[in-house]
């Protein structure tokens, strides 16, 4: 009896120990790092962070990126998921091709888009062939902030829409097809069915996708770093720079705490705003 009661705890023990060692301990250490200066509690690191030239810029850029990328990704993934639902044959193949970017690391994805967008990249070659430009255009320079931003958005959308798609496709498959059929019988056209039936019933999946994607988008780094270096400062990029370039892990930890706080806040907002009351669940 005693053995049986202990067994579940024994089985989850390895995962728990692993997470405590590699997640909780570093988290506590990071918090300590951020809020200490020479062994005393202090806000020096945060003051240093806020006083830095790139601080405001990196916050602005990160939010701008999140605001541009997330709605675009949700809309695209919704359209793609609805299209996949309509397929009879080849559905799995299309899904498989569409989620290939999931298997590519974000740094590699950044390098792919660098190869396309840099001075002598594929994009300029094509433009040159079409006679649209004379010589190489520097799309990713700090002097061209708009095209640099568009480049980063493109790479992020290309890289990370697939995870949203996977969540939404799974969610759509959970909705019994009779709901749509009943709506169709009772007079709803395709757009009305999508708005009044599919979208409300898909809300829990949209919520999960939004939380996951937003948290990851606030942590955006490698894609931006590959495309722009520090020409387009973002929060995690600044943490990296403070850690490795300025060798100040206190300020780097302060950035990490800030990113965590923003992510938590976003999650709480999504959970509140997109709540499905239990009585409205199927």
């Amino acid at each position, binding site marked *: 009896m005693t053995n049986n009661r202990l067994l579940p705890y024994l089985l989850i023990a390895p995962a728990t120990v692993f997470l405590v060692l590699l997640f909780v301990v570093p988290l506590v250490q990071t918090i300590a790092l951020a809020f200490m200066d020479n062994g005393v509690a202090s806000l020096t690191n945060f003051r240093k962070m806020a006083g830095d030239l790139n601080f405001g810029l990196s916050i602005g850029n990160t939010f701008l990126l999140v605001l541009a990328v997330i709605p675009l990704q949700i809309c695209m993934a919704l359209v793609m998921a609805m299209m996949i639902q309509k397929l009879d044959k080849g559905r799995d193949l299309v899904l498989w091709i569409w989620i290939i970017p999931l298997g590519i690391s974000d740094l590699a994805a950044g390098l792919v888009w660098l190869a396309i967008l840099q001075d002598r990249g594929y994009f300029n070659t094509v433009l040159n062939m079409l006679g649209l430009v004379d010589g190489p255009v520097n799309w990713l320079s700090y002097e061209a902030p708009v095209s640099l931003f568009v480049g980063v958005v493109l790479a992020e959308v290309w890289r990370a829409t697939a995870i949203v798609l996977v969540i939404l496709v799974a969610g759509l498959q959970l909705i*019994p097809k*009779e*709901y749509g*059929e*009943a*709506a*169709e*019988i*009772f*007079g*709803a*056209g395709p757009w*009305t069915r999508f708005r009044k*039936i599919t979208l*409300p*019933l898909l809300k829990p999946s949209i919520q999960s996708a939004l939380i996951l994607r937003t948290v990851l988008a606030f942590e955006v780094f490698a894609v931006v770093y590959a495309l722009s270096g520090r020409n387009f400062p973002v929060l995690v990029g600044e943490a990296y720079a403070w850690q490795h370039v300025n060798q100040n892990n206190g300020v780097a930890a302060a950035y990490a705490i800030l990113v965590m706080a923003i992510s938590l806040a976003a999650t709480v907002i999504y959970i509140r705003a997109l709540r*499905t009351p*239990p*009585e*409205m*669940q*199927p």
Partner: protein
Amino acid sequence: MAGIRIDAIEKRFGAARALEQLTLDVEDGEFLALLGPSGCGKTTLLRIIAGLETQTSGRIFIGGRDVSALPPRERGLAMVFQNYAVFPHMTVYENVAFGLRMKGAADAEVKKQVERAAGLLHIEPYLERYPAKLSGGQRQRVAVARALAVQPAVLLMDEPLSNLDALLRLEMRSELKSVLNSSGTTTVYVTHDQTEAMGLADRIAVMHKGVIEQIDRPQALYERPATRFVGGFVGSPPMNFIDMPVKAGLARLGDFANPVSTGRDTITAGIRAEDIAVVERGGLPFDVMVCEPLGSTLLLTGRVAGQLARVAVRPDAVVAPGDRLNLEPSPGRIVWIDPANGKAIGQAA
């Protein structure tokens, strides 16, 4: 109000034929049951009428209008689904109002029709609740109310009672019948439960392997099945089928003999369990194997010349397994069936 004409409808899934050249007329205001075992094509036919499935060939007319190529919403019908398909994110009121809202009805009209439909199905107390808070039977009522609220010309029902428990099913069955009788809606009702079809329908179409075996009034279907399949599927217990050798125009087994008109040397006698009398001597020899007291009758299962048969006798009859009884089927109620093709043949007597 409108009748339905199903004209040479055929449905193939790849090489498999789900429906073969099916033609069927449903009268205006009629209640027609499509009855058959699972996989017989009855749900496919219903979904083709609804427009949720496309026929391979053939046409559907509703109220004289060719709707074969129209989407479901333009066919002027309502449907009740097996799993209800009551929208979980809308209140009962909004569920019932859904069809009217889609038609762009004014709020006053919506309210009037929702209240009328809710009254018919006795769901007024739940109008502001969400379906998750309702029992299966209540959800079923919501689904029917949603269908009746739009005052459809045609109502399609796909096994609407099969998810309810036995007692509730019986209750809903009689209630459905009275509600639909008073509304006079043309109804096509799919079921695999022959009691349900018998109890509800004006006519029953018995389907088997994608064809309609027989279409008739319930009592006629029960008494005069056109095929062995119909006799075996309609009625509980199923009809007995006893093969008898034929000599000189007489089917003879044991001490039982009856004139028949067949060119074959064997004929199958289709006999209902209650159309058999136990007699002192003569008739068919019946070896009792099992006795089941069913309350209103005593059901005996046994063998006639090695062939399985069931006989319903008076509940107070004193019979035990191992007994041999003499059975006398009432000749006028026997259905003679050609064993080669399973079809009933004309009565000789």
